[in-house]
C-alpha cells in the first residue's frame, strides 16, 4: 500500500491512535539486482531512516542506503527515496537551521563572511538546477572482479530540482583573491575519531564559478531531507556525488592545491582511463587523477528482470539515461543479444544535467526468453561500454546491462 493511501485510510478513522512508527511498507522485500557479491545478498535489508521510506540498507553506521528500482519510475527522484551515503559516522542527529551558519573564509578571500540560512535565501538570486547526483561508486557491487567498499547496485543515484544561490555569487560578496586555485568545502558531519581525516573536498575554481554550481536550500521544492544534507548542500552538476558536500558549513578559496586525504588518496582514478572533458588539473598526477564527470549511462526501469510475457504480447521498455552534463543524444535498444539496435524514443528534456527518460516497444517473440539491452550515447558521441573498464575503486561502471524477460 502506498504511504498516501495508507494515510488516507488512517484519516477515515477520525481519532485513530497511533503508537510508534507507521510501518506500512516495513514488510517490503529486498529486491536486489544481479551480479553483487554473495555476502551482499545476505546482509541487505530494507531500512527506514527518519524522513525516508524504506531503502536498501547496506550499512547502518555510517548510513549507506540505496534507492530501490521503484524510485526511478519518474525522471525526478522523490526526496524520501533519494539514496543516502556517508563516509564517517560523526553525523549531527539534527541541525537547527536558525543556528546554522556557513563560513566563507580561507586564504583566498578578501573579506571573510558568516552567512545564515536566511542570508543565503534572501541575499542572493535563487536559481533552480535539475541535476543527477550519483555516487562515484554506484554499481561498485557489479565490478568483476569485486572490489571492497559499499557494494552498491544501480541505485546510488537520484535526480532532483535543486534550488539556491550560486556559489560564485556568494564568493563575489566575500571577494575572491586573484591566484586562488581551488575552493575547499566542508560539512557539519565528520569522523568518530580525531585521528580520522574529516571528509573535506576541494573543487577547481572554474567549476566553482560555473553558473550551475549552487548551494541547494531546497530539493524538489522542499527542504532537503536531513540525510541528504540538510539544511544546505553543494550542487556540482555533472560531477559525481563526492563533491556534493552535505550539511555545508564552510567555503574556502585557497591559494594552493588542497592536500586533504579525501583529495590526495581517495576518489581517484588512473589518469587517462576514462573520457573526461573537465579534469581537475591541480590535483592530477601522472598516475592518478580525481574522479570528476559522470560517464554516460542508462538504466532499464521496466520490465523487471525475470518479468513474464506471453508470445505476441506487447512489451514496453522504459528507462533513464544521463551523463556528465553534455546531454543525451540517443538511446538504442537491442532485443536480440546485441545483434541489432533500434532507437528508443526520448522523453522530455529536463536539462542537460538531469535524467532523460526513454521508451521502446516491441512484441514478445520468445521462444523461452528475451534479453533487452539499452545503450546511451551523449552529445559528445560517447557511449556506454560493452566491457567493464576495471579500476580498483569500482568507479564509472557504465557497462551495458541486460534485462532478461521470460516468454511463456
Amino acid at each position, binding site marked *: 500500500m502506498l504511504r498516501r493511501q495508507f494515510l488516507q485510510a488512517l484519516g477515515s478513522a477520525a481519532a485513530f491512535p497511533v503508537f510508534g512508527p507507521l510501518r506500512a511498507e516495513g514488510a517490503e522485500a529486498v529486491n536486489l539486482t544481479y551480479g553483487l557479491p554473495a555476502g551482499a545478498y545476505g546482509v541487505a535489508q530494507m531500512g527506514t*531512516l527518519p524522513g525516508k521510506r524504506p531503502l536498501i540498507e*547496506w550499512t547502518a553506521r555510517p548510513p549507506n542506503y540505496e534507492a530501490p528500482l521503484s524510485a526511478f519510475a519518474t525522471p525526478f527522484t522523490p526526496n524520501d527515496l533519494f539514496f543516502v551515503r556517508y563516509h564517517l559516522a560523526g553525523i549531527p*542527529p539534527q541541525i537547527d537551521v536558525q543556528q546554522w551558519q556557513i563560513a566563507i573564509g580561507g586564504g583566498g578571500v578578501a573579506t571573510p563572511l558568516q552567512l545564515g540560512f536566511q542570508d543565503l535565501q534572501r541575499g542572493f538570486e535563487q536559481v533552480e538546477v535539475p541535476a543527477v547526483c550519483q555516487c562515484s561508486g554506484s554499481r561498485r557491487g557489479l565490478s568483476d572482479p569485486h572490489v571492497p567498499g*559499499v557494494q552498491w547496485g544501480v541505485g546510488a543515484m537520484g535526480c532532483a530540482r535543486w534550488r539556491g544561490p550560486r556559489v560564485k555569487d556568494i564568493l563575489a560578496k566575500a571577494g575572491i583573491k586573484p591566484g586562488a586555485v581551488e575552493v575547499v568545502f566542508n560539512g557539519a558531519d565528520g*569522523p*568518530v575519531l580525531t*585521528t580520522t581525516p574529516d571528509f573535506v573536498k576541494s573543487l577547481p575554481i572554474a567549476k566553482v564559478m560555473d553558473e550551475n554550481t549552487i548551494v541547494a536550500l531546497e530539493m524538489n521544492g522542499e527542504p532537503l531531507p536531513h540525510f541528504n544534507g540538510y539544511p544546505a548542500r553543494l550542487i556540482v552538476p555533472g560531477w559525481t556525488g563526492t563533491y556534493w558536500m552535505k550539511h555545508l558549513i564552510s567555503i574556502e578559496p585557497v591559494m594552493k592545491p588542497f592536500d586533504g*586525504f579525501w583529495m590526495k588518496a581517495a576518489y581517484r582514478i588512473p589518469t587517462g582511463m576514462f573520457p573526461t572533458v573537465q579534469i581537475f588539473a591541480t590535483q592530477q598526477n601522472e598516475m592518478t587523477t580525481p574522479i570528476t564527470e559522470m560517464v554516460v549511462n542508462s538504466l532499464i526501469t521496466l520490465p523487471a528482470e525475470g518479468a513474464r510475457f506471453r508470445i505476441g504480447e506487447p512489451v514496453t521498455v522504459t528507462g533513464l539515461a544521463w551523463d556528465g552534463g553534455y546531454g543525451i543524444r540517443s538511446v538504442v535498444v537491442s532485443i536480440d543479444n546485441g545483434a541489432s539496435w533500434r532507437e528508443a524514443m526520448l522523453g522530455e528534456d529536463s536539462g542537460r544535467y538531469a535524467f532523460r527518460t526513454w521508451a521502446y516497444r516491441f512484441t514478445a517473440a520468445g521462444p523461452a526468453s528475451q534479453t533487452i539491452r539499452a545503450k546511451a550515447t551523449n552529445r559528445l558521441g560517447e557511449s556506454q561500454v560493452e566491457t567493464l573498464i576495471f579500476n580498483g575503486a569500482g568507479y564509472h561502471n557504465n557497462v551495458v546491462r541486460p534485462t532478461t524477460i521470460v516468454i511463456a
Partner: protein
Amino acid sequence: MKNLWTLILVLAISAPAAFAAERVVALKNAPGKDTVEAMCSGCHSLDYIPLNSPFLDQQGWTAEVNKMINAYGAPIPQADAAKAIAYLAANYGKP
C-alpha cells in the same frame, strides 16, 4: 592509547542512539571475533564485513585492516590487527 579506547567505547555506545535501533550484526563464531567486534565497531557498523564477502583473500583483508589503521587512524595494536586479519580471511575471505 587507553584514552582512545575509552573514546571508542563511549562513541560506540552513544553514536547508534542518534539513529535508533541499529541492528545487531552477528558475525560468525570463530577465534578472533571478539577482537574484530571491539576494534571495528567503534567507528562503523559490522555489516561492512559480510557485505564485503567473500571475495577478499588474505592480502585483500590485510589491505583493508591496514587502511583503517594508516588512512583512518584506527588505534589498533599490531597483534590485534593480525588476529583480526586471520579471522576475516578465514570467515569472510575468498574460498
